[in-house]
C-alpha cells in the first residue's frame, strides 16, 4: 500500500515539476513607456524576469546587481549578440536598439539566471 502511495506521489511530483518549469512561463510585466526599464539582479533571479516591450522600438534596460555571486556578473542577450558586465551595486544601462517581434531571452553567463523580453507588435 505504501509503495502505491509513494509511486503515485512520485508521478504527481514529476508532473508538477515538468509543468511548472517547462510548460508554464511567468506573467510578463508590461514595460512602462518610460525607459530605462529597471531590472534587479538579486537572490539568483532577474526581477522582473519577463518584460513585455513594443517591437520595433529601442529598448534600454538598467540592471542593478545586488547578488554578489560571480554567476550574476554578466548578462547575455544571446540572440541579439549583446552582453554587459554588471558591477555590484552600480546600475548598468544596456541599450538594445529596436527589437524584432518575438521572445528574446537574457541569461547569466551560465544560463541559470533567466529572463525574457517579449517584443510584441
Amino acid at each position, binding site marked *: 500500500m505504501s509503495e502505491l502511495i509513494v509511486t503515485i506521489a*512520485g508521478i504527481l511530483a514529476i508532473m508538477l515539476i515538468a509543468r511548472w518549469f517547462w510548460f508554464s512561463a511567468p506573467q510578463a510585466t508590461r514595460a512602462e513607456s*518610460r525607459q530605462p526599464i529597471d531590472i534587479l539582479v538579486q*537572490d539568483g533571479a532577474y526581477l522582473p524576469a519577463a518584460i513585455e516591450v513594443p517591437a520595433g522600438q529601442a529598448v534600454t534596460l538598467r540592471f542593478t546587481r545586488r547578488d554578489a555571486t*560571480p554567476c550574476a556578473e554578466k548578462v547575455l542577450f544571446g540572440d541579439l549578440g549583446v*552582453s554587459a558586465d554588471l558591477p*555590484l551595486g552600480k546600475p548598468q544601462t544596456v541599450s538594445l536598439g529596436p527589437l524584432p517581434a518575438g521572445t528574446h531571452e537574457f541569461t547569466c553567463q551560465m*544560463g*541559470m539566471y533567466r529572463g525574457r523580453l517579449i517584443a510584441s507588435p
Partner: protein
Amino acid sequence: MNQSRPIHLAVDGLRCAGCVNTVETALRALPGVTAASVNFADRSAMVSGTVEPAALIAAVAKAGYQAREAIDETDDGGQQAAAEQAHYRTLLHKSWFALGVAALALAVGFPAMLGGTMPHWLMQWGSPALALLTLAVMLYSGPQFFVGAWKSLRNHNATMDTLIAVGLGAAWGYSVAVTSAPQWFPAGTAEPFWDVIAVVTGLVVLGQALEMRARGRTSEAVKRLIGLKPKTARVVRDGQEIDVALAEVHVDDILRVRPGEKIAVDGVIIDGHSSIDESMLTGEPMPLEKTVGDEVAGGTINKSGSFLFRATRVGRDTALSRIVDMVKQAQGAKPAIGRLADVIAAYFVPTVLIIAVVAFVVWFDFGPAPRLNFAMVAAVAVLVIACPCALGLATPMSVMVGVGKAAEHGILIRNGDALQQAGKLTAVVLDKTGTVTQGRPAVTAVVTVPGWEENAVLKLAASLETGSEHPLAEAVIDAARSRALELAPAEGFQAVAGHGVHGSVEGRHVRLGNYKFMQDHGIDCEALQARAEQLAQQAETPMFLAVDGKFAGIVAVADPVKPDSQAAIDKLKSLGLKVVMLTGDNTATANAVAAGVGIAEVFAEVLPQDKDRKVAELMARGEIVGMVGDGINDAPALARADVGFAIGTGTDVAIESADITLMSGSLHGVANAIAISRATVRNIKQNLFGAFIYNSLGIPIAAGLLYPLFGMLLNPMIAGAAMAMSSVTVVSNAGRLRWFRP
C-alpha cells in the same frame, strides 16, 4: 576644501525632467557652488565649486533624492575587487561555521558508528541540539540557497540553488521527523542526516568561495587594461601646466607628457618627439619613435622625450576604452561549441529533480531494508551531486581567459564564433601590400624611352598622382619631391580601379598604370618590356607612363617585405595552414615577393572587387579561410572569409572592421590568434567533457545504479564534496590558459 574641482555625484530617484530642475536648484543654492548640472540620462550630477561632497549629498537628500559620490571609472576595478573580497570572506566564515557543526555532528554519531553506545544524555539531547544547530547552519551559512530557490521557483526557473535547497530541506525535514516521531517509521529507518546537512552546506559554500577566487583571476586581462589608464593628466591651460583628473580632459586640450609618464588620452603630437612604448596595446615589444604629426594613444608610455600633444579622443572614445569595451563584450559571447551546454543547462535542473524523485520511488518500492532511509540517501545524493555550474561555466570561463590572453598579445577578438572558427582555419589568405610588405612603397627606378628625361617622366607621373589616394601614388610624389621637382596641377583626373590613372598635366594627356592598362588603350610598351619583366622579377612594381598616347617610360616602385613576415609565415605553415597571397599587383612582382617569404600559391592581378571572389573560390574548394588585410580595400574579402583579420598598426587601427583585429602590424598576430584560439577551444572541450562526464556518471551513481552490482551507495556527503570541487576544477582548468604561450 580650498581647491575648486568638479564633484561627480550619482543621483538616484530622478524620475523626470522636473526632478532634474529640483536637484539642480537644490545644489546651486548651496554656498560655494559655482555650477551644477544634472544629467537625467545617466542619473548623475556634476558640481563645481568649493564645497564638500557630503554637503552636496545632504542637499540632494533634503530635496527628496539620494546621491552618492560617483566613483571614477578607473576606480571601478578596485571597488569591485573590494566587494568581491568581502563576499569571499563572508563565504569562508559561513563555510567554517557549517563545517564546525558538521564535525560536531560526526563526533556525536561516531560512537554509534563503531558499534558503541552513546551516553544517555547524548541520546536524549544530541539530536534536538543538532536539529537546532543544523537549522542555524541553514539560516546562517545557506540562506542564499533557499531565497534563491524560492525566487527562481516563482519565476518558473530552476538553478543550482533549487537543487541544494530541495536536498537540504528534504534531509532536514526527514531528520526532524525521524527524531521527533521515530515510532512512525519502520524499524531501522529512523536515521537523521544532521552530518549530511552541515557537511554539504559547508562544502558547497567553500566551493563557491574557491570558485570565486579562481574566477577573479580569469578576468585579469581586462583589469590590467583598465589599470593602464592614468588617473590624472597634465593639461596646458592659459599657459600653465596643471594636473587635472582624467575625466576633465576635453578634445582639443593641449597636454604635456614627460619622460616615463603615461599618455592620458589619444591625440596628435604638436611639439617635441619621443619614443613610445605601445606594447600594452599592440603587443609590439619595441618602442616606436614619434614626432610632430604622429598619433599617440592613451595608456601607452612615453619613454624618452618630453612632448606636447593635442587631445583628439577622450573618455570612452579612446582606443584603450574601445579595446576594453570590445574585450569585455567578446568575453561575454559564447562560441557555438558552448551553445549545446546552454540548452542542456536550461533543462538540467528540472531533469535532476525528476531523477531524484524517480530514485526515491524506485528505492522505496524495490530497495532493500531500510527502504525509506536508502530512498532518502539516494534522492539527496542525486540532488547535491548534480552540478549545473560545471556545465554552465565550462565555456564562458575559457572564453574569458582566451579572449583576455589574446588581448594581452594585441589581438582583439570580436566574438565567440570568431574565436572558435580561427582555430579551425585550414587556409590563410594574405593581402600583399601592408600585410606581407610594409605598405610603404618607394620608387626604386625610373626608366625612360629615348627622347625622355627621367625627371620629366617622374614629374608627369607625380603631378598626375597628386589626385590619387593609392599607396603607390604617395611613393611617386615623395620621389619627385626628393628630387625637388615642381609638380603641375592635374586636370580631369580619373582612377580606374586595378588598372591605373589618367588626366591632363600641362595640357598633355598622361596615363599611368599597369601593363594591362596600356594594352587596353593600344599603347605599345615593347621598347621596355624586357626591363619591366626584370624589375618585376626583383619584386618591384613597374608603372607604365604614356603621354598623349605614346609610351614614355617606367616608374618602378617596390614595397619592402616586413622583417618578420617570413618567420610568421613559417609559423602559420607549422600550424598546418595553407598560406596564399592575394594582390592586385602584377604576377611577376607578386611571385617574386611570395617566393621571398616562402608562399607557394599566389593570386596576382586581382582587382579589388574580385578579392572576395577569390576567397569564395578557396572556400568552395572546402577550405576554411582566414583573410588577412589592412581593412580598407579588403573589407569585402574580410567579410566573405570565415574569419577576417584586420591588420592595423597601433592606434589608427580599424577596430570595428573585422572578426579579429591585430593591433600590431606583424603577421605573427595571425599565428598567435590561431594558436590561442586552438588552445581555448581545446580548453572548452576539456571543460565540457569533464562536466558532461562528471554529471552523467555522478548522477546515476548517486541514484544507486552501482548498488545492485557492488552493493555501493554514495554517501550524500561525498556527493556534496564532489559537487563543490567540480566547478572549482572547471574554473581552475580555464585558468591554466593564462599560462599559455602562443
